[in-house]
């Protein structure tokens, strides 16, 4: 590391940048914290302690965990293919990865609904084997899969592209099989990126609203996610309840970011 510059300029720009971030991010959160601080703690616990809330949390966190896992499993080979192989149409596939990102989530919801609904192309196919996707938790999973995929691919892909070939070569020279090299050399290098991608897909899934509400059945205790519960509480004038749920979601995000950070630091060591 080089020594810090003793000039004012970087401190100044840092100050300006930080003020901006704090104004946009911290101030609104402080507002929530302050408003919730005036509510008796008992009321907050009360509004969180119902079967409906708990099953919504289970559903949101459980399904986005599953979806993030699936995205990691699908995203790794995808990133590998895009980074390592050349084949006709590679650029197109590469470009398509970002599409879920640029489509408004509500449109994604409508599109997925059309696709997996009882009259959609995939919906009818699944119906034939007796599986209903739209308006069940499976539909929520599909939506989360859709919005989360770019996160995994986009964090892992650059690492594979920039990976040092010499380690792989050494391994191979020493007679290790390709699978062994993958497990012992490549995978450990990718682990931090995989973790980041996983956590981003997970976070996105937990918070996702637009695409999920269209395809979820929104039945309490069955297919009702936490963000929907927040909206429905807000709309039925239950301010404390909505705030309490938001607070839990925010805390969960914070804790998760912290955990990921710590895990990554441990891996780097």
């Amino acid at each position, binding site marked *: 590391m080089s020594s810090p510059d003793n000039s004012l300029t970087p401190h100044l720009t840092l100050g300006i940048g930080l003020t901006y971030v704090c104004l946009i991010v911290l101030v609104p959160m402080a507002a929530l914290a302050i408003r919730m601080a005036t509510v008796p703690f008992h009321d907050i616990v009360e509004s969180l302690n119902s079967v409906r809330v708990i099953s919504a949390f289970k559903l949101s966190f459980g399904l986005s965990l599953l979806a993030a896992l699936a995205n990691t499993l699908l995203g790794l080979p995808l990133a590998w293919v895009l980074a390592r192989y050349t084949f006709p149409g590679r650029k197109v596939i590469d470009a398509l990865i970002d599409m879920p990102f640029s489509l408004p989530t509500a449109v994604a919801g409508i599109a997925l609904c059309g696709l997996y609904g009882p009259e959609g192309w995939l919906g009818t196919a699944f119906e034939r084997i007796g599986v209903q996707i739209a308006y069940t938790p499976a539909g929520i999973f599909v939506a989360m899969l859709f919005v989360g995929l770019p996160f995994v691919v986009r964090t892992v892909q650059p690492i594979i592209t920039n990976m040092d070939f010499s380690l792989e070569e050494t391994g191979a020279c020493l007679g290790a099989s390709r699978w062994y090299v993958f497990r012992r050399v490549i995978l450990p290098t990718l682990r931090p990126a995989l973790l980041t991608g996983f956590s981003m897909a997970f976070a996105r899934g*937990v918070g996702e609203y637009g695409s999920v509400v269209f395809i979820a059945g929104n039945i309490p205790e069955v297919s009702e996610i936490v963000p929907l519960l927040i909206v429905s509480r807000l709309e039925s004038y239950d301010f404390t309840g909505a705030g309490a749920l938001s607070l839990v979601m925010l805390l969960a995000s914070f804790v998760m970011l912290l955990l990921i950070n710590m895990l990554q630091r441990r891996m780097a060591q």
Partner: protein
Amino acid sequence: MKKVRPFSPNTADAPWLKSCLIAFAVLVVLVIVVLPFASVIVQAFSEGPSIYLTLLRSSDMQVAVLLSLKLAAIAVPLNAIFGILLVWGMTHTQLPCRRFIMALLDLPFSVSPVVVGLLFIMLLGKNAPLGGWLEEHGVQVIFAFPGLLLATIFVTLPFVARELLPLMEGQYRQEEEAARLLGAGWWRIFLKITLPEIKWGLLFSIILSLARALGEYGAVAVVSGNIRGKTNTLPLHIEALFNDYELTAANAAATLLALLGVITLTVRIVAELKKKRDSNEH
């Protein structure tokens, strides 16, 4: 006897594996990404291409498109400028609370858009102290342009800073030191040394935040008030069309947004090619 292959280390995947993986990748992208898009496009053209003319002639649609473009045109450069300032400052000072800043920057990625909307209502809604004060002085933030802008800024905040941080970290310090010894000012150093190094990263992150800004739904929906022809952004207008039984028009409008995605992606591919050429020349 075992065959020894000393000088051809096997770092390439077997052809069968390669084909399988490629097929798998194509399949995944096809099912997860392409099919939903295809269904949107098919629906959009189910009544012929004239729907686009009708759609673009509708004044509510024009307002929605303009509003979304304006939001992106203000939010994205703001985030880019302040993001550069922040990252430049972070990489040129030694700050004890770096992890905290990073977590702060990551937060907009991981907070539910619905919660973002709620946060702004709690801060600037009529019943909040600050919002009430502003309201008394005749400034409407929530359910008007400023509220939409704030929500858009919030959700696109991290893109530029997060992309630039690794690029600017510890790189080209020697060149910078040399330049400083030669008497170059900060601005000059930034223009001549830092900017050329980060320009592609900057461009990509700006493109990504543009896409996100134009497509944002959840956070904006909470603070918009859904006044058609006034505060409905393009994604919200698409939803309104859908609810008006204008299914075809809704899908057509959605393809416009997707088209925008295609444009940004094209820019990206071109930029990547240029970047490659740049680095070859060096």
